[in-house]
Structures are given as structure tokens and as C-alpha cells.
């Protein structure tokens, strides 16, 4: 309640400054990339790019910063099934969100299990296009979507100011390359497996412009063999009685 009121207060401060916030895209710029970091990043991206389909299970946490500065952390587990270029299923279970997103090649469906409601977006395009469209048009973030895009290298470096190779570190018991990124509104860190499977292991995003600088942390729990994926996985399963509702686009007021 206190956190909510604080957010309302801050939102109100912002809203009183401006009546019509508008969004514009950051101009692409070339980040200052440490060559060592670049090599790790490209190797990881290539390993993901090569796979047309994938099944990931990830665990993530996000901080909810309270009015007094305390951070309350919420956790979720997400199962992501990907078949490029345009099929996807993301099932999320956890403290705040219990929902599933399906893309069957024609329609994107978001189902909220707690409220038993769903919404459809027709013709979402490829996975990359859908991720961008959800952000630009609906202000809806798709956590872990950085693992889904066709070119992970591009996703992680676009809009980024600098990338530093920090060193070798550990995620659990596995030795990983540790990279640190700096961007305008976020800083992020990526851990990439240092062995013969150079995939992403963990990512931490710090929202440095937000009060209390909340952090999102995602760790790979499991990567499964995708060879047995059936098309039916991407077909939505909406329970009887679920209500279809609309999804509101972000207001364009400028």
C-alpha cells in the first residue's frame, strides 16, 4: 500500500510536469565494446542463432521499491518454448504474475490465469517484431525476451553505450564470462558459460533511473532438447469461462 502510494505520488509529480508524455526512439549508436566482451557476446549469439527452436526454463526476481527505500523481491519461473521465426509460448508462474503468452504464427494471445481473462493481437509478425510491438504499442515487457530474439548480439548491444569484460565468475558452480553493459536508463550484466556451451546463464538489469534502482535478475534453470516440440505447444489453451478482453494501446497524445 505504501509502495503504491509512493508510486502514485511520484507518478503525480511526473504527471503534473507534463500532460502528454510521448515516446520517441533512441537514435542507434555504436557502443564502446571491449574486444574480449565482443568475442564472448558474438559466440553466445551465434550459438543461439543456430538453433531454430529452443526450450528454456528460467527463474527471475524483481525488486519492488517501497516508499522508505526497502526492496521487496518477487520471484517468477518462466518456461519459454521458441520456434523461429514466429512461434512462441511463454508460461509464467510466480508471486505477481501467472500468465501465458502464445504466438501460433497468426495470433498473439495473452492469458491471465489469476483473473481468467485473455486478449488477442492479430498478426504479430516474427518473434522480434512481436517483442518490439509489445513494447512500443502496448508498453508490455516480455521478461526473458532477450533470449528469444533472432540476433541476441544486436538485441543486447543496440542502445548500449559501453560493454566491459569484467572477468571470469561463477553462476552457481559453473564458471562464466561476466560482461557489464551501460545504457541510458539501465545497466545490465550478463554471464555466459565459459565452457563448450557458451549460452547465457544469468542476466541482471539495474533500472538506474527509477527510485531505488530496482534490479531484475534472471537465471537459466534448464535448457531442454527442443527436437520434440510439436506445433500444438503454440496453440493457445484458454479454459472455459475465461473472458476475452481488450488490450489497450499506449496513448499517443502528442
Amino acid at each position, binding site marked *: 500500500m505504501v509502495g503504491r502510494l509512493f508510486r502514485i505520488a511520484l507518478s*503525480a509529480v*511526473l*504527471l*503534473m*510536469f507534463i500532460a502528454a508524455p510521448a515516446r520517441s526512439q533512441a537514435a542507434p549508436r555504436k557502443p564502446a565494446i571491449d574486444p574480449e566482451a565482443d568475442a564472448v557476446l558474438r559466440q553466445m549469439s551465434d550459438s543461439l542463432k543456430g538453433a531454430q527452436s529452443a526450450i528454456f526454463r528460467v527463474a527471475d526476481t524483481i525488486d519492488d521499491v517501497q516508499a522508505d527505500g526497502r526492496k521487496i523481491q518477487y520471484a517468477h519461473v518462466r518456461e519459454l518454448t521458441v520456434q523461429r521465426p514466429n512461434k512462441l509460448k511463454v508460461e509464467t508462474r510466480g508471486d505477481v504474475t501467472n500468465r501465458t503468452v502464445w504466438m501460433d504464427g497468426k495470433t498473439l494471445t495473452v492469458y491471465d490465469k489469476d483473473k481468467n481473462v485473455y486478449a488477442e493481437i492479430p498478426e504479430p509478425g516474427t518473434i522480434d517484431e512481436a517483442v518490439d510491438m509489445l513494447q512500443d504499442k502496448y*508498453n508490455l515487457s516480455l521478461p526473458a525476451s532477450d533470449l528469444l530474439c533472432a540476433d541476441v548480439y544486436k538485441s543486447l548491444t543496440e542502445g548500449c553505450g559501453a560493454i566491459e569484460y569484467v572477468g571470469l565468475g561463477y553462476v552457481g558452480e559453473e564458471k562464466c564470462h561476466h560482461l557489464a553493459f551501460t545504457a541510458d536508463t*539501465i545497466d545490465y550484466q550478463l554471464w555466459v558459460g565459459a565452457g563448450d556451451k557458451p549460452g547465457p546463464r544469468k542476466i541482471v538489469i539495474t533500472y538506474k533511473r527509477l527510485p531505488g534502482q530496482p534490479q*531484475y535478475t534472471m537465471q537459466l534453470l534448464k535448457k531442454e532438447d527442443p527436437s520434440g516440440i510439436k506445433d500444438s505447444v503454440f496453440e493457445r489453451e484458454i479454459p472455459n469461462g475465461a*473472458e476475452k478482453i481488450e488490450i489497450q494501446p499506449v496513448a499517443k497524445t502528442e
Partner: protein
Amino acid sequence: MKSKRCLIAFMTVAFALAGVLSGHAAQRGSGSASRGSYQARPASSASRSSYGGSRANAGSYGSVRQSSAQSRSYSGASRSSYPSRPAAPQQKSFNNEQYGSVRQANRASGAQPSYNRQATGPAGGTYTDKGRASVDNGKASYNREITGPHGESISSEGRATVDNGKASYNREITGPGGESISTSGKATVEDGKVKYNREITGPGGESIETSGKATVEDGKVKYNREITGPGGESISSSGRATVDDGTVKYNREITGPGGESITSSGSGSITGTAFSQGAVGRVGAVGAVAPVGTVPRVGAVPAVPAVPRIGAVVPALPTGAAAVTVAGASYYTFGGRYYRPSYVNGAWNYAVIAPPIGATVYVEPAGAAVRVIDGVTYYIVEGTYYRRSFVNGMVSYLVVANPE
């Protein structure tokens, strides 16, 4: 309850700052790599087995018991107590769906809040009003320029910070001829006590100073304030208000430079969702939030959160009212009510209106009747129809037109 009141007082300060500011400027990141304590890097990737030697001391972290002990040894005293535990996650309106994607966050990073509006004046001329703002970790800044039909302009810029119950701001307004008015102020909120001071300096260096204090405790509020003009003349005011079993009572005394004084007192009652005014009392008379463009009374006593009926017109907003824009129109909202400001006969009034179409709340409206019309579920409260919809990734309740 006490912490809630304290928060309301804090919000009063926040809104005061918001009233003072009216836009904000872009704050760009450094663009360079962060240089935290993970500085040193190994000589080569082949030989390293761990991070470089100048990393943070990892042995200093990871124990709540030890961290607490360190904290005590730093300060010599235990930290102030935290307010009660927040609501369970299931009841929260925390929007988890705004996080977790680098691609999307970087894509949105260019979204510095900005606006550019045009309006037609009474004589037909076009006025433009544009501005930009940023909020970064409790620090806000803005700039704004209003240009008239003949190119004359007024610009303003300002900054504000809110940190752990302390707020400060400064602002400068520059007129068409280059003349400027600057304002700066500070406010603190601690344990239900609010203190502030403010100084306004005109183009000729003349200044007006204001300072005040207010306390809120167990439904009793007290305040005093003093305004000192350029010549040292002062006006002071003090007042008290109590809320007891739905009845509000207040008294106030204003003393002028010559010692002359004006006293006023009043009472009112809160019944159900309607606030009925007493013989003398005035809704929001004590501690109202000023309309946009004027300076709210920072140190004024927070008003009693009344819930006036739809259709009423009140002379002041309840403390904590938030400015919102719905479908391009500006409103204030508080306690489930929306207020539309209007300037009539030299004074601001606020019409209490039904939530406008397009307004959103994140929890089911209290007391809503649920009806299914043409297969769509509506939530109806006092003639306002809400429909569930995904808004910013959250299932929300959106005000829609009456479908019947």
C-alpha cells in the same frame, strides 16, 4: 495509521513540488562504462581463474546478522523502524510486466517524457506550449516554453529532489523581456511533522519568504506559517483541525503586519460517501493543493480526506490529489473521485465528476455491481461503467461509455 498520515504529509510535499514544477528536462547518462568496484580485469582470459584483485570485498556481504551488527557499529543506534509490512503480492498493483527485457528497455530509453501542445486563444491566435522532463532516482528536472501568437515567450526550468523525507526545489521563470522570477524551497517530513521554507525573488531582487510547520497526529492537525515581504512586513497564520467520529472542526487565525487579525472556525461532517458542509466550514479549507501553475501551500495542514458526491463543486482539492491526463484532458483524482478545475470569478473551483472515459484503476472498483451486456462484463459504480482490459501489461479496469 500514523505512517499513512506521514505518507500523506510526504505526498503533500511531493505535490507541492509538482505544483511548483511543470515539466522536466532530459538527463542523459554518461554513456561510459560503469566503474564500480569490479574494476580490475585479468591479464588474459586463458590464465585467469577469478576476478581481479581490486573487486569488492566479497567477504563483507551475505550475512543479515553480520550486516545488522555492522550497521549498529556504524551508527551507534538501531535504525528507525519500518512501517508495517506491505500487502501480500496477490493484492498488490505492482506491475511486474514492465521489467525483464534489455531489448525493450533500451528501445524505450529514448522516451524522455515530452509534450508539445497548441491552443487557440480567445482572439484566434495560436499558442504553443512545449516541455521536456526527466525523473531519475528521486531527482526531477524540467524545462518548458510557452510561445504566444506574436512570438513572445515565457520559459521556465527547474529541478527538484526528494530523498528520505526531504524535498527541495528551485525554479526560474523568464519573461518575454528577459526579466526573471526565481523560487527555491525546502521541506522535510518526519514522524508526521512537516517543515518548509520558500523564497521567491523578483526581477529587481525583491524577495518574499515563507516558512511554516505542520503536525499530524491521531486525527489532530496543527500548523503555523509566516510570510515576510520585501520590506520586512509579515503575515502569519496558525490553525488547528480535528477529526473525530466523522466530524471535522477547525479554527484559524491570520495576523496582518499591523497586528490586525482575522479568525475563522468551522465544522463539517463526513457521512457515507458525501461530505456535508457545516455552517461555517469549507471543504478543503485547511491545506488544499493549489491548481496547476500556482504554488501549493507546502506547509499547510493536510486536509481531511473527504469524498464529496459527484456533481458537487468544491473550492479546493483534497490533499494528495494527483494530476492525471485522460484522453488529453487534465483532471485531479483522489479517493476514487475526479475533479475538473475551472476558473470562475477570479477563483479556482473543482467540479466533482464521474471518472472520465479512458480513466483506469488497477483494482476492482469497490462496491461494483457486475453485469454482462452483449457478452461483455461491466463493473458498475455510481453510473460509471468499467470494463476489464490489459493496460500497460496489467489487467485493469477501464472506464467506458455506458453500453446501454
